[in-house]
């Protein structure tokens, strides 16, 4: 035993304890700030954090959570906060907090400095596939909705440049079809010309002609000749049957080929549709009008919230897995494996957070968030929140929801009600169709979104009342469209907007409707319909002209090849018919002779019987 070593250890331990009193607070503060900032995507700052092992308890003077979209503003800011943790779970690396009292909460407060963090500092949690797919589908839907530069676009739609970009696929397809048809026709023609019926039929003809009925003497001669003729006849019938079968097979093959030609029109229609989409020549109807005006804003917000849900689900799924996927961590970091035990306490659990404070609109908020927990299965309860508030001016807000990851299928429910808030100085649309800020007016939002697995069902209703738009910024209208917009903006006093989303994956139904749709549609259509029709006609005729060259060539090839084949068929048919006629004539001749001979013999017998 090294006694000096023990004394050294005791001294070191004492120094460490002393240092921990000085530096633990700073260390915990910076660790918490670093992790929370990474998850938030912008700075999260805690002022004067203090940790005490006695209790144990944690307190801070101020908490600021920066808005990642505007890093000069705090999304949420809270005042003094103090809470206790359970001591024993800390020894098992678990943090269990009974209650946190977050008072003096304020939203959208100004920051003293920029709260942005670098890309490297952000913690990116991978989103589940269904979230990525849904977001990208919604974004594509909005991107595909023609923007408002419609008239300009329609007028400037340069048909030649569109055709240059557009790969007219039908031309290549027609060309390939023509090659295919030519090949088939040539094969059949070759097969027909190679038929050896000609030789057979010539032999038959010679045989038939060689029968000289006059040379036949007795009835036996006649009968033998008749048998021979019938044999020849059956040979001709067999040749004819064989030829008819070939003809039938050829005709069925040709009819199939021809039916392939009928899809040419579909190809041309598809090219025309592509051209319209490149030119962004719009179909103005109430549905896509609402998407044009509000789509970008609504989809942006919805995607953001869906992203939060995705992150929560990713985390919950990670812990749910019995066999965590092997990762490729940085050197010396390793991968932490979670071991689920239903009867154990969770690694992290804030049982309750009591919230109180006020928003920037002077709405006094109060409510709770319950069971923020690392693994819901260990406590048998979902995460729930319920926050309510109202202002002296009559505005009221209610946020209620739950994140339930207890079962195999994750479920989230959100209900938001926000009414009586001022819309003054806000822009309710990102579209050029509604460029003005609101000068006066109040708003109401009612929304309910339920997610169950990949299935989404949601409805958001927004109502703006007593609206008055700020017209001071707008100058004289530069074109007819701007004139319409200005006249509509002047006349709007209420706005009703309903967004609904339902379904999953490819079966996702998304709709936005508003009371402005009809107004815009009527006035826009009045201007656009003429321009749109002209542009469409121009495009159609250019595409038709390009395609018709190939179509004509195709039709000419078909008719020329058909003619060749039909003439070959006719040649064989004529030859067969001619031989048939010849044999039948010969047969008739012999039969007549036999009849004649029979009656002659009969008369002879009668004469003998008379005596």
């Amino acid at each position, binding site marked *: 035993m090294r006694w000096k070593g023990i004394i050294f250890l005791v001294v070191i331990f004492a120094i460490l304890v002393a240092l921990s009193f000085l530096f633990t607070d700073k260390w915990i503060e910076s660790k918490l700030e670093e992790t929370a900032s990474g998850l938030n995507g912008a700075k999260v700052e805690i002022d004067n954090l203090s940790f005490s092992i006695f209790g144990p308890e944690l307190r801070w003077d101020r908490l600021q959570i920066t808005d990642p979209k505007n890093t000069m503003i705090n999304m949420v800011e809270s005042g003094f906060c103090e809470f206790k943790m359970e001591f024993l779970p800390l020894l098992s690396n678990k943090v269990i907090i009974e209650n946190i009292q977050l008072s003096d909460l304020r939203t959208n407060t100004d920051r003293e400095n920029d709260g942005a963090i670098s890309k490297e500092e952000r913690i990116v949690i991978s989103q589940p596939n269904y979230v990525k797919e849904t977001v990208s589908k919604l974004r594509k839907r909005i991107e595909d909705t023609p923007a408002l530069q419609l008239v300009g676009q329609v007028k400037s739609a340069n048909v030649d440049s569109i055709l240059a970009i557009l790969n007219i696929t039908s031309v290549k397809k027609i060309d390939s079809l023509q090659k295919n048809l030519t090949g088939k026709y040539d094969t059949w023609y070759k097969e027909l010309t190679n038929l050896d019926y000609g030789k057979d039929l010539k032999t038959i003809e010679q045989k038939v002609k060689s029968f000289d009925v006059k040379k036949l003497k007795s009835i036996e001669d006649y009968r033998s000749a008749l048998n021979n003729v019938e044999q020849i006849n059956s040979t001709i019938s067999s040749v004819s049957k064989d030829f008819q079968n070939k003809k039938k097979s050829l005709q069925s093959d040709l009819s199939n080929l021809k039916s392939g030609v009928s899809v040419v029109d579909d190809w041309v229609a598809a090219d025309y549709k592509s051209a319209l989409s490149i030119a962004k020549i719009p179909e103005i109807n109430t549905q896509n009008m609402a998407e044009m005006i509000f789509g970008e804003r609504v989809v942006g917000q919805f995607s953001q919230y869906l992203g939060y849900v995705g992150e929560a689900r990713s985390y919950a799924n990670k812990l749910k897995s019995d066999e965590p996927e092997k990762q490729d961590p940085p050197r*010396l970091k390793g991968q932490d494996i979670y071991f689920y035990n239903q009867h154990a306490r969770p690694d992290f659990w804030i049982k309750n957070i009591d919230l109180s404070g006020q928003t920037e609109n002077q709405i006094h908020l109060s409510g709770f968030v319950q069971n923020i927990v690392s693994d819901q299965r260990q406590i048998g309860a979902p995460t729930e929140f319920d926050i309510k508030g109202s202002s002296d001016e009559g505005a009221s807000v209610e946020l209620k929801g739950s994140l339930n990851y207890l079962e195999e299928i994750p479920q989230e429910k959100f209900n938001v009600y926000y009414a009586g808030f001022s819309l003054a100085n806000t822009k309710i649309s990102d579209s050029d169709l509604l460029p003005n800020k609101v000068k006066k007016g109040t708003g109401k939002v009612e929304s309910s979104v339920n997610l169950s697995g990949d299935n989404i069902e949601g409805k958001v209703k927004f109502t703006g009342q007593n609206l008055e738009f700020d017209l001071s910024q707008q100058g004289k209208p530069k074109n007819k469209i701007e004139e319409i917009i200005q006249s509509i903006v002047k006349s709007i006093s209420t706005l009703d907007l309903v967004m609904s989303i339902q379904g999953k994956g490819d079966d996702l139904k998304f709709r936005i409707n508003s009371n402005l749709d009809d107004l815009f549609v009527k006035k826009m259509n009045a201007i656009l319909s003429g321009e749109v029709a002209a542009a469409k006609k121009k495009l159609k005729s250019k595409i038709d002209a390009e395609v018709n060259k190939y179509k004509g060539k195709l039709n000419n090839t078909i008719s020329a090849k058909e003619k060749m084949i039909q003439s070959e068929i006719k040649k064989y048919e004529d030859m067969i018919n001619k031989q048939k006629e010849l044999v039948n004539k010969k047969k008739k001749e012999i039969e007549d002779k036999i009849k004649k001979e029979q009656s002659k013999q009969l008369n002879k017998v009668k004469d003998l019987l008379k005596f």
Partner: protein
Amino acid sequence: MFVLEFIAKLIKILRSEISPNQISWGFALGMILGLTPFLSLHNLIVVILIIILKVNLATAIFSFGIFSAVAYLVDPLFHSFGYYLLVDLDSLNGFWTWLYNVPILALSKFNNTVVMGSLIFSVILMIPVYFLVKIGVVNYREKIDVKIKNWKFIKLIKGTKIYSLYEKIRDLGV
């Protein structure tokens, strides 16, 4: 220069009066410190053992330095080995789950693949390394050291002015 000094120090330890046991234990415990992530609960125990037991500190530090570099190189293997023990080996799952919830032990980061892989690997190696080093030290002192001292090359170096100058500077520093 640093490497030469390091080798010189090692040779000095080998030639010293320190027992082969102390050197071997120092080397084996230093190996655990070096191979496993330093800031772990088990390493606190290893450090305490190094300090309070009569093991050779210099050897432990030397071993720690060498095996820290080795650990960096073989980290992916430790990760895979740890993952195998913690995840793939179903029979141990119940034990790990129990351990995960045991106070203090849960703080040991045993559920980290690199901690687990490197710790088990170094614990397995500890005894063989102890005996190998011990045999090495005994052999060096009995056979190799005498031979090295008699090498012409060594004698030549020791005979140079630079070496005597180095010895003077070294002695001044002591």
